[in-house]
C-alpha cells in the first residue's frame, strides 16, 4: 500500500503557518517574549553553524551579535537614523570586523581558533567599557529607538519573518557549491587547496556570512529590548550559542534550530526549581552528549520509527 508522505518543505511551511497563528492564540506578553527570544537565538545559533561548517568553532559569536546591536543602536540613537537602515548597517559592521579579524585568526586550526575567538568575545566587552561614552558603560545603553510601539505582536511577526528569511538564506549558502567547498575545506584544507579552493579565503567567507547574519539579528534584538548592557552579549551568551548548536546537532541544518528552541525553553520550564535549575540544564546536556551523539536531531529517526509503529505511518516517508 502506497502511503502519502509529508515532504520536508511542506512540513516546514506548515510549521511556519502554525507559528504565524500563535499571536492569535497566545496573548501573554511573557510567552510572546519567549518566542521572540527563541527566534533570535535560532538565527544566531544557525549562523554559528554556518561558520562551523567550514571547520571553525567560534566561541565569541555573541560578541558579533553585540557589534551589530551596538552599531545599530548607537547610529539610530545618536544620528537619528531609522532602525530599518541601521539594522543592516549593524550586520555589515559585524561582517567587516569579522573579515578584519578573520584573516589572521583563520590561520589557527580547530581548538586554537576556538580559544582565540572566545578571547575575542571577552575583549569586545572590554572595548565596550572603554567606549562607555557611547555604549553607556556599566549602566547600559538606554533610549534605543524601538522598531514598533506598544505591543509585542508586530515584533513577533518581524522576528518570525527575519528567522524564516535568515534560515532560507543560510540554507541556500550551505547547499550550493559554496557550502560544498566549505565542507571540503573543513575536512581537509590540504586537498581543498590542491584542487584550487582558496581555503583561507573560504573560511573568512564563512565567518563573514555568519557574522553578518548574527549582527543583523543582534541589531534587531537591540531595537526590541531597547536597553543594552555589556552582559547582554557576553561570554555566557557565546557559550550558550555553541551549546545550542552542538546539543541540537552540529551535523544537521535543523540542529541549531532544535537546540535553541529546546534549550531556551528548559530553564523557563524549570524556573520553579530556582537555584536548582542549572542541575536540570546540566542533566540535559550530559544526557544528550552521552546518549545521542548526533544531538537532538538524532531523535528524528527513532521518533519516525515510533510513529510508524503507532500506525501514524501515513505521515512518515515509507522506508524502502
Amino acid at each position: 500500500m502506497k502511503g502519502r508522505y509529508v515532504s520536508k518543505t511542506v512540513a516546514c511551511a506548515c510549521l511556519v503557518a502554525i507559528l504565524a497563528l500563535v499571536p492569535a492564540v497566545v496573548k501573554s506578553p511573557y510567552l510572546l517574549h519567549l518566542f521572540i527570544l527563541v527566534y533570535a537565538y535560532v538565527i544566531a545559533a544557525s549562523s554559528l553553524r554556518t561558520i562551523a561548517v567550514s571547520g571553525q568553532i567560534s566561541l565569541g559569536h555573541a560578541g558579533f551579535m553585540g557589534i551589530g546591536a551596538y552599531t545599530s543602536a548607537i547610529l539610530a540613537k545618536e544620528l537619528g537614523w531609522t532602525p530599518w537602515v541601521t539594522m543592516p548597517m549593524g550586520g555589515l559592521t559585524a561582517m567587516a570586523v569579522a573579515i578584519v579579524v578573520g584573516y589572521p585568526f583563520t590561520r589557527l586550526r580547530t581548538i586554537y581558533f576556538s580559544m582565540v575567538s572566545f578571547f575575542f568575545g571577552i575583549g569586545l566587552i572590554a572595548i565596550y567599557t572603554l567606549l562607555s561614552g557611547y555604549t553607556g558603560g556599566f549602566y547600559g545603553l538606554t533610549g534605543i529607538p524601538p522598531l514598533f510601539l506598544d505591543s509585542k505582536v508586530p515584533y513577533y511577526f518581524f522576528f518570525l519573518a527575519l528567522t524564516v528569511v535568515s534560515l532560507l538564506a543560510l540554507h541556500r549558502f550551505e547547499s550550493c557549491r559554496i557550502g560544498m567547498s566549505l565542507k571540503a575545506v573543513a575536512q581537509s584544507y590540504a586537498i581543498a587547496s590542491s584542487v584550487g579552493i582558496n581555503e583561507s579565503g573560504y573560511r573568512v567567507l564563512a565567518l563573514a556570512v555568519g557574522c553578518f547574519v548574527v549582527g543583523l539579528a543582534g541589531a534587531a534584538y537591540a531595537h526590541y529590548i531597547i536597553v543594552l548592557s555589556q552582559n547582554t552579549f557576553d561570554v555566557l551568551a557565546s557559550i550558550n550559542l555553541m551549546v545550542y548548536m552542538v546539543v541540537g546537532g552540529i551535523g544537521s541544518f535543523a540542529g541549531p534550530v532544535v537546540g535553541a528552541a529546546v534549550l531556551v525553553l528548559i530553564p523557563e520550564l524549570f524556573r520553579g526549581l530556582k537555584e536548582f535549575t542549572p542541575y536540570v540544564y546540566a542533566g540535559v546536556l550530559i544526557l544528550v552528549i552521552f546518549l545521542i551523539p548526533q544531538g537532538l536531531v538524532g531523535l528524528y529517526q527513532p521518533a519516525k520509527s515510533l510513529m510508524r509503529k503507532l500506525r501514524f505511518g501515513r505521515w512518515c516517508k515509507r522506508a524502502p
Partner: protein
Amino acid sequence: MLLEINGLIKYFGGLAAIAELDMYVREGEILGLIGPNGAGKTTVFNLITGFLRPTAGRIGFGGRDITGMKPHVIARLGIGRTFQLNPFFSDFTVLQNVIASFFLHPKSSLWGAYFNSSIYRRNEAQIAEQALAVLELVGLDKVKDDFAKNLPHGYLKMLGIARALAIRPKMLLLDEPIGGMNRDEIDLAMKAIDKTRRQGITIMLVEHNMQIMDIVDRVVVINFGQKICEGTVQEIRENAQVVEAYFGVEDDAER
C-alpha cells in the same frame, strides 16, 4: 620544458632538506623522481605546489615563475597533485569527493552559485558528467556512492588521482601512486596513469616500487636534497652501482 627548477634550496631550521636542486620536466613526458627515504622527494612536491616556501631558488611552470605562490593559485595554473598519506574528504562519498574537486573547471561565480543562475546549473550538470568520466578512468565508477572512508587503501589512492584530474591539470604530481597496492590495484593504477598521459598530461611521480619504471620515460635520482643523476630508465639501470650505493637494500624491483 614545462617545469623548471633552478637552484632550489629549503632549510628546516638548520637542516637542508633540499640543497640546490636543478631539474626540469619536459612537456608530455612521465618523469620518475626516485631516491631513498628522506631524500626530499615529497619536499620537492610540496615546494612546487606551494605547500612549502623555498628558502631560495626558482620554480618555473610554463614559462611563469611560480616560486612561493599559494597552493590554490598553483592548482589554478594547472598543477595537480596527490598526497603521500592519502587524505580524503572523510564525510563525502567517492562521487562527492570528485564533484567537490571540480572547483576550477567549469568555474561558477559565488553569486551565480548562490542564486542558482542558469550558468551555475549548466556547470553543475557538466561537472556531474565529468565526475563520472573521471571515476571511470580510474576505475572507481562502481563504488561511486560508497563513503570514501570505507574504501580500501588502493582505491583511496585512485581517488586521489581522480581528484587531481578534476582540475584539468597540465601536469600531475603523483606521490607514491602505487605504494602499498596489490597486483590488481597496481594494474588499474598503471592503466589509469597511461590513459592520463595519453590525454596529454605531463606526469612527475615519486615512487619506491620499481614496477613504475615500466611506464616512466625519464628518471631523476635525488638524495640528500640534491640531484644525483638523471637519464632514461635504461641509463639509470646501467648506472646500477650509483643506484645501489644510494638504495642499498631498499631496492625491491626484482621482487
